[in-house]
C-alpha cells in the first residue's frame, strides 16, 4: 500500500527534511520524490510505502497536516488508489 504526500506552498528551508522526519518516525518508507520550485512556490510530491507504518494511517495524515499548518503550507496525504483510479483507464 502506498500513499501520496503533496506539499504546496511558499518555499522555505527544510521542508523536505521535516516531512521526511515524520515519515521515518512513522516507519513510512519514501519511495520517490519529485519537487519543483516555480518562482516562490514550492510543490513536492512524495510517494511513500505505508504497508508497515507504525501508527494508524489517519495519525500520519494528522501529523503531516499539522506540520503543514505550522509551516504555512498545504500538505495532503492521500491513498494512491484515488489517483490511479481517476487518471488511468
Amino acid at each position, binding site marked *: 500500500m502506498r500513499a501520496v504526500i*503533496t506539499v504546496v506552498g511558499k518555499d522555505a528551508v527544510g521542508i523536505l527534511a521535516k516531512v521526511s522526519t515524520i515519515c521515518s518516525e512513522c516507519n513510512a518508507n519514501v519511495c520517490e520524490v519529485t519537487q519543483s520550485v516555480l518562482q516562490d512556490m514550492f510543490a513536492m510530491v512524495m510517494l511513500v510505502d505505508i504497508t508497515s507504518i507504525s501508527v494508524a494511517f489517519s495519525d500520519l495524515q494528522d501529523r503531516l497536516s499539522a506540520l503543514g499548518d505550522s509551516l504555512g503550507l498545504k500538505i495532503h496525504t*492521500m491513498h494512491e488508489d484515488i489517483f490511479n483510479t481517476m487518471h488511468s483507464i
Partner: protein
Amino acid sequence: MINVYDILETIRMIQDECLDIRTITMGISLLDCIDSDIDRACDKVYDKITRCAKDLVRTGEEIEKDYGIPIINKRLSVTPIAMISAASDSSPVKFALTMERAAKECGVNLIGGYSALVPKGFSAGDERLIRSIPEALASTSCVCSSVNIGSTRTGINMDAVKLMGQIVRESAEATVDDRCFGAAKLVVFCNAVEDNPFMAGAFHGVGEPDCIINVGVSGPGVVRSALAKYPDADINQLADIIKKTAYKITRVGQLVGVRASEKLGVPFGIVDLSLAPTPAVGDSVAYILEEMGLEKCGCAGTTACLAMLNDAVKKGGVMACSRIGGLSGAFIPVSEDAGMIEAARSGSLLIEKLEAMTAVCSVGLDMIVIPGDTPAEVISGIIADEAAIGMVNNKTTAVRVIPAIGCRVGDELDWGGLFGKGPVMPVNTNSPARFINRGGQIPAPLHSLKN
C-alpha cells in the same frame, strides 16, 4: 510514479472545485419486518436498520480520510413503507417515527422510503400511507417521502395525481412554522427507480438485494472549471471535455463504492452518474450552462446546452464504473443551485422553461418554491404535466414543489444547508380543476408495447 500533474489536478478538483462524493446510501429491505402488530413491526424495523447501518457513518468517514475526498452525506433508503404497513390497520406514522429514531441512532442525515408505488392504482395500505404523509413529515426531521404515480408501462394514475396535489399542499401547511419544509422532503415520481441514492426520492425497491450500497457522485464545479479553460472551443470539443471530466469524477464514485462495500461486507450496487449541484458558489449546473455561452440560465438555448451536458456526462461516466443506475444525469434543483437561484430571481428562469429542461435531463421540477395560494389542483396539474413528459419519453421525472404558505412571488424561503433557498416563482393560475377532478388513468403510450 503517478504523473505529478494528475496528482495536482485531483487535489485542485477537491480543494477548489468542490469535487465530492455526494452520498453513500445504504439500501435496506424491510420485507422481513412485516407484522400485523404495528408495534412489533416497528421494533423489527428499528432493529434491522440499526443492525445493518451501524457502521455506515464511521466507514464513510474512514474512506473520506483515506482518499482525502469529502463524502457529504451518509444516508439510508428502505423498502416503501406502504408495503410494510399494509399488514396492519394502524396509522403508518409510527413507522416514520421509528425510521427517524433509527436514522438518528445510526448518525445518518436523511432516510428515504416513506413511500408508496401507485402507478396503476392503490393497493392495501397505499392510500392510508399517502394520506399520512403530511403528518409523518411534520413530526420527523430526517424522514423523506416519495410516491410513484405513473410509468411508461402503466400510464398515469390520475386519482393519485389529484391526491398528491392535496398532499403536497398539506405537507407545506403542516410545517408552515418550519418554512414549509415538509414539502421539500416529498417527491412525486413518474418511472421511479429502485436504486436511487439521492434524496428525497430514494427508496429500496423490492427487486433489490437485502442490503446494498449505492453511491451518488457530484462535481458541477469541476466541469465548469474544465470548460472555462476553453472559451473558444466548438461544441464537439466541449462535449469531449465534459466526457473526460465526468469519467474522472465517476471513477472516484466507483472507488468509494467498492471500498465501502468491502469494509461493510455489503454488496456494491450502482454509481449514480450525476451532476448534483449544491448552493455553494462554484458548484452549480446553471453556471456550466452559462459557461457554454448563455447570458443567463433560462434564456433561449438553455435546453440544448443541458441536453448536450446531460448526454456527455453519461457517455463519460459509463465506462468509469461497473454498474450504473439511479437517476444518472444532470440535476436542476432550483433552491440547491446558486446559478439557478440567481436566474430565477432575475426572472430569466421560469417554471415553463424548467419543464422543458426536464425533458432532456435528470430528473424533474425540483426544489421549486411556488406561491402559497397555489390551489391543490394546479399542483396536481404540474404533477400531471411532468409525469406525462416522463411517461412519453421513457424517463424518470419528478415534482418537488414547495408551496410557500403565506408568501407571494418575490418572497424567498431559506432552509440553509444543502436544501438551500429559493425565490417564490410565478405559476400559471388558470385552473385545470375540471381535468384533475375527472380521475381515472391516462393509458400507457403506444411505445410501452415493446414485446
